[in-house]
């Protein structure tokens, strides 16, 4: 067979090969994104995602969406502009959550015995589904960045509230009041993570009384818009083919 001849001999065979490629690429994409996104999120979100006593209504709500919209934006750019596929954000979050759960279960629990109810990951799926949906419905980078980015920030806290609310029930412990999440952080000793490292409930959003989570979520959404634009362009840049010579085909 010469280089100019087709590798397939019929339409059925072409479809079969194409589908095989689909699964190969999807499988590879999933695990590459899992690795890259996981490392990125652990380095930037880190403890906010590791521990329940870091999941507060101010900084966790602000930081986690901002640092996590990165890969979804980049992968969306690649999959949408090259293939008109609108599942970039969801694929990213599926990969990230699988990697995180494997890490939390095998490492945090399996090796160091931190209870899973203390070190489970944040839920990013609602924002990812809405981000992908807006991309498909609008077909626009700008609309996805503005509406989707804002939604990504706004949906984060309510999407996680059913999971963390039970841990925010107060408890009286030796004469002090704390939440169950605080108590987990106190009980389950982390030698290298002293209490003062926690970046929670810090900031100047005091004029809003107890209702700071929505304000933090809005702020997070606004910054997520900017980060979305930035990483969308990273994705587009990485997805270009100008560095491949046409003579190779």
């Amino acid at each position, binding site marked *: 067979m010469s280089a100019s001849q087709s590798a397939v001999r019929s339409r059925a065979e072409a479809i079969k090969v194409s589908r095989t490629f689909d699964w190969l690429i999807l499988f590879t994409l999933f695990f590459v994104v899992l690795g890259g996104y996981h490392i990125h999120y652990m380095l930037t979100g880190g403890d906010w995602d590791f521990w329940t006593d870091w999941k507060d209504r101010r900084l966790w709500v602000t930081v986690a969406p901002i640092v996590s919209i990165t890969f979804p934006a980049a992968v969306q750019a690649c999959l949408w502009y090259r*293939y008109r596929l609108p*599942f970039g954000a969801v694929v990213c979050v599926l990969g990230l959550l699988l990697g995180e759960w494997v890490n939390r279960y095998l490492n945090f629990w399996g090796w160091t015995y931190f209870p899973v109810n203390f070190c489970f990951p944040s839920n990013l799926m609602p924002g990812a*589904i809405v981000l992908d949906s807006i991309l498909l419905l609008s077909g626009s980078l700008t609309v996805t960045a503005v509406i989707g980015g804002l939604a990504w920030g706004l949906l984060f806290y*309510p999407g996680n509230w059913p999971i963390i*609310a039970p841990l*925010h*029930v*107060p408890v009286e412990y030796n004469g002090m009041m704390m939440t*169950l999440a605080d108590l987990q952080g106190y009980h389950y000793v982390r*030698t290298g993570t002293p209490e003062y490292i926690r970046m929670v409930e810090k900031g100047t959003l005091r004029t809003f009384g107890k209702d700071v989570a929505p304000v933090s979520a809005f702020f997070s959404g606004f910054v997520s818009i900017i980060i979305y634009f930035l990483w969308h362009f990273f994705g587009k840049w990485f997805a270009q083919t100008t560095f491949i010579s046409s003579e190779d085909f």
Partner: protein
Amino acid sequence: MKILKDKVAKLSFVALLITMTAAMFYAPTASAHGEKSQAAFMRMRTIHWFDLNWSKDEVPVNDTMTLTGKFYVFKGWPETVDKPEVSFLNVGIPGPVFIRAGSWIGGQLVPRSVSLELGETYEFKVLLKARRPGDWHVHAMMNVQGGGPIIGPGKWVTVTGSMGSFVNPVTTLTGETIDLEHYNLSNTYFWHGLWYAIGLIWVAYWARKPLFIPRSIAVESGKANTLVTPLDKKVTLAFAVGTIAIIAVSMGATNEKFPITTPLQAGLLRGMKTIELPVATVAVKVEDATYRVPGRAMQMTLTITNNGDSPVRLGEFNTAGVRFLDPAVSEDESGYPDDLLAEEGLTVSDNSPIAPGQSRTVQVTASDAAWEVYRLADLIYDPDSRFAGLLFFYDAAGNRQMITVDAPLIPTFI
């Protein structure tokens, strides 16, 4: 010759792989906490732990033990380490093998960070509940913001039983008693499982159709718009609306189920109660101090003045948790860890009682293998070659006085 070389290279590579693979079968438990690696001046000149007591050597799962003692926040705190204005009383154990059921400084519960004052002595207590069976090194420990963990003496404690039987009951302010070990676990799995399944369905919807090659060809040929059908848009809309609906409903249901929730609690505790030690009547001046590297011994020339009304003798030199005792004056009855105790490690050139009003210059030698084992001899490589420690003087009635010393240290190599 080339074939032989190739074979040797190949066999060497195989041998390397076998060695690396074999190494995986020997993975002993990491039980140390790097206490010996911490710079000697950090251990000698920051937090001085003393009067430590581990209430038990063996604890069954679910049973408790206490680690009690005192610590002196050294007045000559090194400039290279941030002051302990934000500190946290911790315990050095390999993860949550115990849970910290309580910790107190000066009788106050300290679940949060505290501010400590230089030159003050504090009493502390840590209540530990055994969780995971094994032999664990239990250290007193103080984390200092900007200074890192300052680890104190450690003692081996054995936890017996089964971790499966561990329970951690807590009663909330809403009157519910829960087991914190497993609380909220099924709820967490449910929500993560549900959302993951929705995400998978979303990808599966798109993956049931040809994905990359045909779609790429279509996009390249300007037919991108044909790739999204009206059905796709309807399904997408359903996913978006469904997502928001699930969030709204679950949020409402959660708020109904947990009407009382509070924010995470944080903040710095100030004004910790200190121990009022009696005014020292013994004054000590360090004339010089040398560390003899080959002999693993530190020698000090001290001028001791007794301004009290009863004769005193030097019984102990304590530095970095290592206790050098003169057995004629002081003996340990607390079960202090053997490796940190030099029961006959303190020699005083003339340790007869120093009478009231008397001043005497003596040669004091603190020698033990602990200098080497605990890498305190590495002090000579530190950026600030000074030593520090606590001297304990006793009168005939057994009354004790604590005096701190802090002076330059000159190493001798011959």
